[in-house]
């Protein structure tokens, strides 16, 4: 094999690897989220975050607008402090927007859904979302249901 064709083959090999890497970076790992233009950060405290994980999506009306960047436990209030990064500066939310922890599908991962309020002022970088709803924990639901059924029974009897 001539020198020229060997060098050509090696060049093709390297290009192929670079293309594969680009494909992996953007299509597979969704790196575009990290190369966003600006954006701003918010925080929210929850009593119970359920199975919420880092990098979980944050959506408004089902549209992803950001992701969870950090989850820590506040040592004094024992609440979960969740930090959120909003991807775009253009997504402006009123200051009375509420945050709720929802589940994708029936068994899916947790994510944060934001329901916009009606106030004229908008969140600024570093603001905290005041109204939060914790995740629904299955065991609590079941005990609630059992409790309410037994209540109904005894109630209807008496």
């Amino acid at each position, binding site marked *: *094999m001539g*020198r020229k064709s*060997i*060098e050509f*083959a*090696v060049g*093709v*090999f*390297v290009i*192929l*690897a670079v*293309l*594969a*890497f680009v*494909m*992996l*970076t953007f*299509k*597979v*790992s*969704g*790196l575009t989220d*990290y190369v966003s233009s600006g954006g701003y950060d918010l925080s929210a405290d929850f009593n119970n975050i359920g199975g919420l994980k880092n*990098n*979980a*999506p944050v959506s408004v009306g089902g549209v992803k607008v950001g*992701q969870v960047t950090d989850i820590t436990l506040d040592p004094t209030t024992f609440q979960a402090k969740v930090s959120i990064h909003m991807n775009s500066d253009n997504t402006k939310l009123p200051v009375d927007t509420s945050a709720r922890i929802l589940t*994708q*599908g*029936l*068994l*899916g991962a947790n994510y944060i859904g934001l329901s916009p309020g009606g106030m004229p002022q908008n969140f600024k970088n570093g603001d905290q979302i005041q109204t939060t709803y914790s995740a629904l924990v299955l065991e609590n639901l079941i005990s609630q249901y059992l409790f309410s059924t037994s209540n109904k029974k005894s109630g209807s009897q008496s």
Partner: protein
Amino acid sequence: MIKRIQSLGANTLDVVHKIGRAGVMIFRTLVRVPRPVKAFPLLIQQLYSVGVLSLIIIIVSGGFIGMVVALQGYNTLVQFGATSELGPLLALSVVRELGPVVTGLLFAGRAGSALTAEIGLMKATEQLDSMEMIGVDPLWRVISPRFWAGVICMPLLAIIFIAVAILGGYVVGVDWLGVDSGTFWSSMQSSVSFHTDLLNGIIKSVVFGVVVSWIAVYQGFDCYPTAEGIGRATTRTVVYSSLAILGLDFVLTAMMMGGW
């Protein structure tokens, strides 16, 4: 009984001795940096024989592995109604584990054994000796380009393997089994992290590349210069490389998962 203990001790010392020799060899190879002008064409030639010639087996294997993981994954996920998670299942298993490890094993079997056999043959036919006699250090003319080619090619091959595997899984999952294309990619993107998953996978493949190339090159260089010796050295390369890859994979995974 005493003899058994004695031979165990002797064997252990022998192993330590051999690792020491391997260390000295690689140290001498790395320390004597060759003149770039003369060494570059040698490197290109080795990138060709080590990397380009391994492409076919990597691409074919990658395709099949991706397809099998998608198929098996689907069969299990469908029982939970969770087929939307096929994308993450495929991507995470391939990027984190199957990509670097299977590529490493295939690389050890195809390229590693070829390197050992080639170097061993050069040793047996006295080519390395005559090179030294003419005044050229075989460590930098023969060993060094092959070692560096292996280290460079492994991550490149692993990346190609991962990409092909995911494409293969896409074909099976979306085109054949009917998983929604949008869900496939979006759930994959939200679960695969660039830093923890992709970069760590690439780091793993670099480590495997260093280990396999080192073992392959050392076994060839140190083999008994007969036909039988070359054969045994080649087998040793494949076995030791495979064990090292699997062992290191566990260690690296533990380190990475533990958050280093």
